[in-house]
């Protein structure tokens, strides 16, 4: 048992911090808004700069141009990026599609896409969810009919981040309606400029364009864009999901929000001249929340450590998804109430002052306990896989 990072890890964090100090705009608070042209330009610039250092694909094997960095280094990368609310850490290409192609892709697919992803080239998006799937992903209905050497796709995908910016989508489609529901699914790569694709923005409860619905109307995709076997797409997709919950993001966001709230309390005076933080009950709540963040953080660290040891961290990943998203919401809930009326200002302008941002931040983070497998689904996973409780 040992609870600090080693010298290599500390040095990497330092290097990354300096990089971010240099690359991020002055006074950057974040988060980035990729739906604005300015925000999209920043995203792309950062992605390129990260790619140039090899950081986006640092965990990849050397044969594919990676550095075979340890999961702990990779965790530090995500932790620091999220803490800074820095854009450019594309996961769709580097963390999801890349490893999938390495495992299931043809030689041609690997040659075509892997170097491009490593260089921060094409933007990928992920087409898994559909309006009726929710947590039950295997119930997806978007259908691809194999006609000769082409698939023809009809249906729609939803909650697709960056679809309005993406060049390509990797997606799951149903290719056999008669098969058992996990069986008749295929994994495809689709050019977003294909005729028949329409991207409709979805505005979230924070008023931001964070998702899209993508409609497919007779969209043609060549058969060489299939990854893995026909009807084996569930297997292709699920191979990755366990490891890619990105829970350290929630820990870092919680940490950053906590610090912003603490700083606000430490610099804002009540009418009687006292600082908000002079109030012991404010401090006590901050201390409780700090401990909650630490709990989530160390489960997340454990997940990375388990990976360094070669263990698949299924239960622990679910635990840290729950702990991290709940801590994140709890921090912002406290902040909104603490700030009082100023914390309820909610206009579209950008605010440097926390009071003008915190309500939006809370609304945004509502999705944490819901997306990527609701926390209820995570508890089911813990119960079934980790604790081996009976299903009936």
């Amino acid at each position, binding site marked *: 048992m040992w609870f600090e990072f080693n010298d290599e890890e500390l040095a990497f964090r330092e290097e990354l911090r300096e990089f971010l100090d240099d690359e991020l705009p002055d006074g950057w608070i974040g988060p980035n808004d990729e739906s604005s042209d300015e925000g999209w330009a920043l995203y792309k610039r950062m992605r390129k700069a990260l790619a140039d250092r090899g950081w986006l694909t640092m965990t990849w094997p050397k044969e594919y141009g990676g550095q075979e960095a340890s999961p702990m280094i990779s965790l530090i990368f995500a932790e620091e990026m999220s803490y800074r609310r820095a854009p450019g850490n594309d996961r769709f290409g580097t963390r999801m599609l890349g490893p999938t192609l390495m495992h299931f892709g043809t030689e041609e697919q690997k040659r075509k896409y892997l170097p491009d992803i490593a260089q921060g080239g094409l933007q990928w998006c992920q087409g898994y969810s559909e309006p009726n799937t929710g947590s039950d992903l295997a119930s997806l209905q978007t259908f691809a009919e194999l006609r000769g050497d082409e698939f023809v796709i009809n249906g729609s995908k939803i909650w697709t981040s960056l679809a309005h910016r993406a060049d390509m989508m990797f997606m799951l489609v149903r290719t056999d309606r008669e098969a058992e529901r996990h069986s008749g699914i295929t994994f495809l790569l689709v050019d977003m400029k294909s005729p028949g694709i329409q991207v409709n923005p979805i505005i979230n409860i924070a008023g931001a364009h964070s998702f899209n619905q993508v409609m497919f109307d007779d969209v043609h995709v060549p058969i060489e864009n299939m990854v893995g076997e026909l009807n084996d797409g569930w297997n292709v997709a699920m191979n990755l999901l366990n490891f890619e919950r990105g829970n350290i993001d929630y820990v870092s966001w919680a940490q950053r929000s906590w610090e912003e709230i603490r700083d606000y309390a430490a610099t804002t005076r*009540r009418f009687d001249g006292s600082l908000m933080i002079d109030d012991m009950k404010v401090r006590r709540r901050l201390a409780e929340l700090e401990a909650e963040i630490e709990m989530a953080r160390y489960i997340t660290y454990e997940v990375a450590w388990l990976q360094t040891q070669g263990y698949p961290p299924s239960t622990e990943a679910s635990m840290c998804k729950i702990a991290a998203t709940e801590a994140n919401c709890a921090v912002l809930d406290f902040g909104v109430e603490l700030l009082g009326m100023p914390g309820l200002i909610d206009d579209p302008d950008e605010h440097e002052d926390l009071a003008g941002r915190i309500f939006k931040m809370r609304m945004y983070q509502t999705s944490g306990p819901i997306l990527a497998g609701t926390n209820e689904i995570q508890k089911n996973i813990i119960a079934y896989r980790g604790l081996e409780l009976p299903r009936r």
Partner: protein
Amino acid sequence: MDFGLNETQELIRASAAEFLADRSPSDFVRAMAEDERGYTDDFWQEIGELAWLGLTIPEVHGGSGMDMIDMSVLLNEWGAALAPGPLVESAVVSAAAINKFGTETQKQEWLPAIATGQTIAVPSLTGIDGSTNPNATNLRAAETTNGYVLSGTTRFVPYGNSADLALIPAETDTGTTIFALPIKTAEGTVNITPLKMASGAPATDIELNEVVVPSASTLGNPGEGQDVIDHMTLHGATARATQMVGAGSAVTDRTIDYVKERRQFGRPIGAFQVIQHYMADMATKVKSAQHLANRAAWALATNADSPQSSRIVNQAKWTANTLMHDIVWTAHQSHGAIGFTWEHDLHLYTRRILSWRADYGDTETHLENLARTL
């Protein structure tokens, strides 16, 4: 003990539910949340014609002479419909203050006009520091031979950009005093800055610069403003708690409907035991908060000035703040991704319920009042 509605109350409930379903649908609520004033004159005129604005105003001053219990029945529906406009601010809080502390002249001048909706009166009860301490004010009223001169700023005044009359605490040489300020016609500089708020109702920062008012503009005696503040806060807290419970109840109903319909893994998600327990918790919380909010209305109707009534109101608002907050997030969790979209109505409730917690005493303020008077 009586947990039911009498005939009049049942009539209010039914007609409010019917009218608001028709006139305050989600489209209207959404449009008003984007509107700088937050409501329309047409809508307000109709509300006035329904006699809702004068519900608790004495008949002699143009109202219906009912009490806070009757009003709470309306407020419950008002909250459930997320209806826009300064009902609580004008017809509950300001009307109660003018009715109790106003001179006969003030009553005659303001109450009938509030009852018709012709006059919008609003209280200024947020502290300059953004807290719910109305005494945190830098407004000063200097007494002169022919009245007072007011200068300073008051923040987050609800619907201040529509108001005809603002009830504003200011410091005078004799202590805190409430001024009934006709802000549209006041002599001097009045700068009103509307702020876009999460609740969808506008709040305004109001800056007064050498505003001159006659001596007769104080509501209640000079230096005795705390009594007026307390009376307004108790009525506002009770009204908001009741609105919140109405909104929480609507959220609960909608969530229950949703989980009955939404299917996952081959069955409605409402067939999953964890979701069932979420729904049972929500329903229990609504009921708990409903009873305490109703009891607060009863306490104000029967004995508003007793310390026990203050505690009952504190309990009601603390409970509504705490439990409706829980309800909102359980509702989001049960709705999943669809509840995270702007298009779905759930966030309309979320925004209001979270915002209303800060009005007329936030969670901590009510808890500390209870704690201090244990």
